[in-house]
């Protein structure tokens, strides 16, 4: 290390993916620095509903999700902190025969790919797992080893372990310019220059801005995903519950509060990094919750918020090497379902940095897959 700003790897973005990458890089005996424009876990990584879910994933993501779930289960051993991960399973309820058929088709599709983690459950098994579910729910899909975690604490767990292994985290450090200087990248920030031969772009909804600085156009739309949380309720639910036919993600946390998401979108101003909620959609969310969990009708909602996430046109993330410049690896644009993938994608990024390849199939996530498609509005 020749100067204070010199590192082996510069990780841009202090969210779950940046912190996971920093941990895996540091564990591989490299010295990474994480540059975070605000504070660690400022946006999606603390606003996330925290679902650790393989259930219902795009087939392209299943191999990664299968590897990642093992890392979640091992997290206490590897990081010394489990980010409050609880493997209480994930369920998607079917409210009618059509939806139950969709469950069967989905389970068959997953089996055909060689996996058996998604299973169809009947009315009786659904009630055993989710006693509070409404009468019209006739079954569903279930993954037993999935669950949820506390996003801020999971991100912090990676950050603290990375720091313990020698990584440096710089908060309130905004990237202003990136240029190639010999064999190294020179990243200019409001807190001075940083240099390293390798860059990791884990800038979330701002990942496309970083890519653009490197001459790579990626169509990313910043989206504000809305969530609501109730006051503390007596314990009534273990698994995280979604729906085959409606937008809902529903879980009761250890504290007794119920976190409700489901992909309802608010408005986002990427410049001010502020979000505004669209309450008519939260009204719909409340109707869904009241229909599937009638006991929730009288539950007080104490807070609603939205996290800013980057969405790609095909709703799959960008993972892997830059196709424009050497020594750059992307890990952003997780489209609202990157939380579960955090551990494994950090490990993939570290493999790519250290050995140039990974044993997991990341071709579907290549950065140039949208080339030639019309630019986003």
């Amino acid at each position: 290390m020749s100067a204070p700003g010199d590192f082996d790897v510069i990780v841009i973005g202090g969210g779950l993916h940046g912190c996971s990458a920093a941990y895996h890089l540091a564990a591989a005996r490299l010295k990474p620095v994480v540059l975070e424009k605000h504070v660690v876990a400022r946006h999606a990584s603390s606003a996330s509903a925290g679902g650790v879910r393989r259930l219902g994933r795009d087939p392209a993501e299943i191999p990664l999700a299968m590897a990642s779930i093992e890392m979640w289960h091992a997290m206490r051993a590897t990081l010394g902190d489990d980010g409050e991960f609880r493997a209480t399973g994930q369920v998607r309820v079917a409210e009618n025969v059509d939806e139950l058929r969709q469950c069967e088709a989905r389970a068959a599709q997953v089996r055909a790919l060689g996996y058996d983690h998604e299973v169809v459950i009947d009315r009786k098994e659904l009630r055993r797992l989710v006693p509070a579910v409404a009468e019209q729910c006739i079954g569903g899909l279930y993954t037993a080893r999935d669950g949820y975690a506390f996003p801020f604490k999971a991100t912090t767990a990676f950050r603290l372990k990375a720091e313990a292994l020698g990584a440096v985290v710089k908060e309130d450090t905004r990237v202003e310019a990136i240029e190639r200087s010999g064999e190294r990248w020179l990243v200019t920030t409001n807190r001075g220059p940083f240099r390293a031969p390798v860059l990791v772009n884990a800038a979330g909804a701002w990942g496309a801005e970083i890519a653009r600085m490197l001459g790579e156009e990626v169509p990313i739309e910043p989206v504000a995903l809305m969530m609501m949380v109730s006051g503390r309720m007596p314990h009534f639910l273990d698994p995280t519950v979604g729906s085959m036919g409606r937008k809902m993600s529903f879980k009761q946390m250890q504290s007794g509060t119920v976190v409700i998401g489901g992909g309802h979108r608010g408005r986002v101003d990427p410049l001010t990094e502020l979000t505004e909620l669209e309450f008519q959609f939260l009204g719909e969310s409340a109707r869904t919750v009241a229909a599937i969990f009638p006991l929730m009708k009288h539950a007080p909602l104490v807070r609603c918020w939205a996290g800013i996430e980057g969405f790609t046109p095909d709703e799959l993330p960008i993972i892997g090497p830059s196709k424009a410049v050497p020594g750059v690896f992307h890990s952003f644009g997780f489209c609202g379902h990157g939380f579960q993938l955090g551990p494994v994608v950090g490990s993939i990024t570290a493999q790519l940095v250290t050995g140039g390849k990974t044993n997991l199939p990341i071709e579907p996530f290549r950065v140039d897959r949208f080339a030639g498609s019309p630019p986003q509005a």
Partner: protein
Amino acid sequence: MSAIDLAIVGAGPAGLAAAATAAELGLSVTVFDENTAPGGQIYRGIEAVAGPRARDLAVLGPAYAAGKAVVERFRASKAGYSPATTVWLVQKDRRLGILRDGKASMVEARRVLIATGALERPVPIPGWTLPGVMLAGAAQSLLKASGMVPAGPVVLAGNGPLLWQLAAQFVAAGVNIAALLETGSAYKAALPHLPAVVLAGGYLAKGLGLIASVRKAGVPIRRSVEGLRAVGKGRLQAVEFTAGGRAERIPAELLCLHQGVVANAQLGMAIPLKHEWVEAQRCWRPVLDAWGNSDVEGIAVAGDGAGIGGADAAVHAGRIAGFEAARALGRIDAAARDARAAGDVAAWRRHLRARPFLDALYPPARALRVPADDVMVCRCEEVTAGQVREAVRQGGTGPNQVKSFTRTGMGPCQGRMCGLTISEIIADALGKPVAAVGTYRIRPPIKPLTVGELAALE
């Protein structure tokens, strides 16, 4: 859904005066009030007290009786009144989320005036969560709303005009006051502001009158009280403290705590309007122009919610905001606004001259702003000052991170109760000014809403 001209949140002196003024100038106005009758906190129950409960009027005193004229003028105007209505959201586009009859809905307005008044500053002392300990303003609200007085013995502790006012009201109502414990009033620091408070008219005489009536009744008074604790098994049994170096213990059934009021900025912070830290009042207030306009087009704030000025100042601020609303919506031009508002502007400024004296005289005690480790600061989530300091040691640089670490501010009050204390503790621990540390990001709904109530929103 057709937009009303002016939606006013809150029916205290500022909201009512603004409503009457704007309606008299021809605007369509609706006042949304969480209570069932106009008056806000300061004039709570005034219509009932001035009518069927006339006996309570003598107890509550002349400052309270002044509310009668404000409410009467509002009632005489064409302004609409929506009682028992909670405003849980104001958006930048001037849509309001309201809750009425168990159903959430949205209301559109061309202009919004936030007149949500003041909140009591929290007084986190050891034992403040025991039953039998309450804030003085809450005790006063019971008196106004229903004439309820404690059986006693009562201890009043803290500082500020409201503490003396409550003591005087309790004296008039025949309550058994065991002691009034005053924490750190800064007479010397207030002295330079004495001429201004005299010019403000009435304030000094009113304050001295309250103090005299409490003294005359023989209420034991302790000055420079420190180490205040509420003690008891399961409920309050006694108040312990030191005064003049001597430890004392006074048995009590009720302890009323007070250390001043602060702007209730929650609704504006959730929009968010731009806010600033006011060192003299140690609280946040919205950044406003001379007419009460915020940095968000069409949204104004008036009264104590814009910074503490008291009820008389709030009436004038409300009228000023009413004239400005009429100008902004094209009913009168700027010259007409200036001419009509001139008297209120002068009166408003005169009333505000009393503040520097009161702010300097009654600073919130450091031990109450930055409590010891074992004192609970977030009552909803039961988080202690020590846990907040621990989160700072773990790398928390502001209230939002400390919230993620500890859950403080995540409960039903949304940080209304603990927000100031949390910012003060973090600033103190980091050795930074409170202004640099900031406050919670406040998220709607600012008052809890049930799933069933929100489900009504289409």
